[in-house]
């Protein structure tokens, strides 16, 4: 029944041509595919391949200490796990990938998740659970060798840097010359501090009370932005160029990394988690109530690589652009180390690992719907940078209309006015178009008159957890750097030694700040460069996780089942290698980093650039070259780990010694069958 409905919905989406298709079909197709994947594939993997053992005590039970190792009810673990893995990634990626039409992205989100991402999360969770909740890096070192472990550590650090830069750029683009958005986003900082002080001193540990206060203040900040926007004297205070905002974001990141956790990071995380869960639920309800039509064609002409949002053909770039939502290496860091410390029983691994990722994939589907319910002309007008379609509104609409997606200047002006913005042209980064999509869905479902409020609510919702990722990421980067430096110089390793804190935080902030700065001064918007780089890095981390998993499966004499992680691994190797190859060698200046660098230097030398572009050209040229080096580094690291894994597997199959399995021996659980800790 589910299978028939699912097959019908998928073929409905896939075969529909030329006429609008209802978003409800997307939801139906997604839910059916998830149900089949969860009921059959995941159950088979859990029972036959992993052989989860419900009589076996988990690390949470064996090592219980009342603080981080705590056996916890499975729904609670699911909530923690989902809140940890779901960030802004699944919202931004599908929005950008919608330039290919709705079909390629949707299919990859569905099948990538069911066959790849969910399997990665579940298997990693299982392996870490069997190894005292060890981290991915530790498992890579123990099971494959020192190379794997070091690679995982470096990969994590570099991904963090690129991720923060690209997310910072998304926020900056959303706030650029928008006093309303800038006010609302800035207000989230003092609000978080108020909540932090409340929890720490006024009503100690009353997390829910403090959060309720914070949520109310946030909603007031959204409404208050309108007052700022309408006041001629106040609006100039919040009306800034991208570059100014970028400096502020960097200053904020630095402050957040050195301020105590309780003051900013922890309260901000509470608020962003509630906002995230609440808004996503609201969006699902609104889509089901409203059943909007998807106006984007199934496939656009941009699959040939000429897309305005980012250059590159459908293969491999749709698979790079949508990482989170289909398969995300970052999840392996949460599934190892963090979540296993709470897991009460191994039988819940399927629900938490596989199920958690299914829900994230569903979030990505909703982002895809929100992007594709817009008129394609409007979608491209918001997301195409001035460098591609021209600075003047008239040029932009003419160019976009010439692609076959009609849009007019008046239409964009009316829309901008409805959303309470000065303009919506060239608002790259994905956040503004997602916010317009969400606002129109919310507006139609819950009241048209509040479009501007909904728009800024959506911007605030994205910004608040982007900033959370930004400060949490800077902090993690700081700890990693202190850890590495601590090996050479003991004092630097002390996480509370102030000089070390300041130096390492500054290093981390300048690393991502550099990419953010270049992104802001780039006339093509920057996201087109940074996002693919982030995608490649994230897929590389996924490949490391899948290598560890495949290696362990082979070493556990389960070689015949190694395809469950081996097949997604092979696919990731193909797409990351192809994408990296094209990024390095393509002659197309919109794809190849080196081609772009050479083209720009030639133009600069010939004096073809207008003065404002000539001024930034040397920086852009250097950045293109740096990006090329980074890409080469990523892909070399990937191949190194793959060879290491293959080497270990071949040695095992030939009967030669390999690093021994570090699985902890079986001990019986003493927790009763229906035991629930509450």
């Amino acid at each position, binding site marked *: 029944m589910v299978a028939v409905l699912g097959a019908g919905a998928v073929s409905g989406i896939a075969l529909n041509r030329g006429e609008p298709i209802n978003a409800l079909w997307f939801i139906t197709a997604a839910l059916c595919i998830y149900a089949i994947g969860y009921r059959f594939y995941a159950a088979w993997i859990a029972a036959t391949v992993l052989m989860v053992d419900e009589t076996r005590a988990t690390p949470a039970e064996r090592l*219980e200490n*009342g*603080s*981080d190792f*705590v056996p*916890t*009810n499975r*729904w*609670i673990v699911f*909530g*923690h796990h989902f809140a*940890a*893995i*779901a*960030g*802004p*990634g699944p919202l931004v990626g599908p929005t950008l990938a919608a330039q290919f039409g709705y079909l390629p992205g949707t299919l990859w989100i569905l099948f990538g998740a069911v066959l790849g991402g969910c399997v990665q999360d579940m298997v990693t969770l299982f392996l870490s659970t069997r190894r005292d909740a060890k*981290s991915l890096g530790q498992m890579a070192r123990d099971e494959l060798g020192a190379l794997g472990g070091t690679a995982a550590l470096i990969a*994590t650090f570099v991904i963090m840097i690129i*991720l923060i830069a690209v*997310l910072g750029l998304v926020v900056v683009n959303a706030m650029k010359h928008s006093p309303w958005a800038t006010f609302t986003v800035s207000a989230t900082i003092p609000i978080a501090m108020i909540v932090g002080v409340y*929890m*720490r001193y006024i009503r*100690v*540990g*009353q*997390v*829910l009370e403090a*959060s309720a206060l914070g949520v109310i203040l946030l909603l007031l900040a959204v409404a208050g932005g309108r007052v700022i926007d309408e006041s001629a004297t106040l609006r100039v205070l919040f009306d800034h160029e991208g570059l100014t905002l970028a400096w502020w974001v960097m200053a904020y990141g630095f402050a957040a990394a050195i301020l105590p*956790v*309780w003051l900013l*990071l*922890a309260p901000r*995380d*509470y608020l962003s988690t509630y906002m995230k869960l609440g808004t996503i639920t609201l969006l699902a309800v609104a889509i089901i109530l409203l059943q909007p039509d998807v106006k984007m064609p199934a496939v656009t002409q941009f699959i040939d690589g000429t897309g305005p949002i980012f250059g590159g053909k459908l293969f491999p770039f749709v698979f790079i652009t949508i*990482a*989170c939502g289909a398969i*995300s290496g*970052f*999840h392996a*860091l*949460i599934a190892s*180390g*963090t979540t296993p410390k709470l897991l009460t029983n191994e039988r819940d691994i399927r629900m938490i690992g596989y199920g958690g990722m299914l829900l994230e994939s569903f979030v990505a589907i909703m982002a895809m719907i929100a992007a594709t319910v817009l008129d394609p002309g409007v979608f491209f007008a918001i997301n195409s940078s001035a460098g591609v379609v021209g600075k003047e509104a008239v040029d932009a609409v003419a160019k976009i209309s010439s692609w076959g997606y009609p849009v007019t200047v008046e239409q964009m002006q009316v829309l901008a006015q409805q959303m309470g913005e000065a303009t919506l042209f060239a608002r790259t980064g994905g956040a503004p178009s997602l916010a317009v999509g969400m606002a129109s869905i919310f507006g139609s479902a819950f009241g048209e008159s509040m479009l501007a409020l909904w728009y800024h609510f959506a911007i605030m919702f994205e910004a608040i957890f982007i900033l*959370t*990722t930004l400060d*949490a*990421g800077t*902090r*993690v980067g700081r*700890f990693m750097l202190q850890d590495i430096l601590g090996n050479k110089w003991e004092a630097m390793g002390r996480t509370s030694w102030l000089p070390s804190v300041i130096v390492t935080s500054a290093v981390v902030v300048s690393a991502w700040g550099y990419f953010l700065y270049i992104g802001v001064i780039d006339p093509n918007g920057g996201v087109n460069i940074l996002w693919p780089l*982030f995608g490649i890095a*994230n897929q590389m981390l996924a490949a490391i996780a899948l290598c560890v998993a495949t290696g362990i499966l082979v070493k556990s004499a389960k070689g015949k089942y190694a395809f469950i992680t081996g097949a997604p691994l092979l696919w990731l190797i193909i797409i990351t290698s192809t994408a990296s190859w094209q990024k390095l060698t393509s002659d197309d200046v919109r794809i190849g980093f080196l081609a772009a660098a050479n083209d720009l230097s030639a133009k600069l030398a010939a004096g073809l650039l207008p003065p404002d572009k000539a001024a930034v050209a040397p920086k852009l040229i250097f950045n293109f070259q740096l990006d090329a080096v980074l890409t080469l580094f990523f892909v070399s690291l990937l191949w190194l780990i793959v060879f290491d894994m293959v080497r270990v597997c071949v040695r095992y199959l030939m009967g030669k010694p390999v690093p021994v399995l570090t699985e902890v021996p079986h001990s019986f659980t003493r927790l009763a069958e229906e035991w629930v800790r*509450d």
Partner: protein
Amino acid sequence: MLQAIKIVWQAIRQLSGDDAYERYLRHHAEHHADESEPLSKQAFFKKWQDEKWQGVKRCC
């Protein structure tokens, strides 16, 4: 109905960490009652928050 609301409320409290101190006291009473005095609410909350924010806890 009342039972259902109670369960949901418990889940929300546990997910957010609202009841973390109560759980800690219970754990302490069960396992370490004879070894040491439990931490004060303030001290526990500080420790809990600091621990919760070590390492990679949020994703993209």
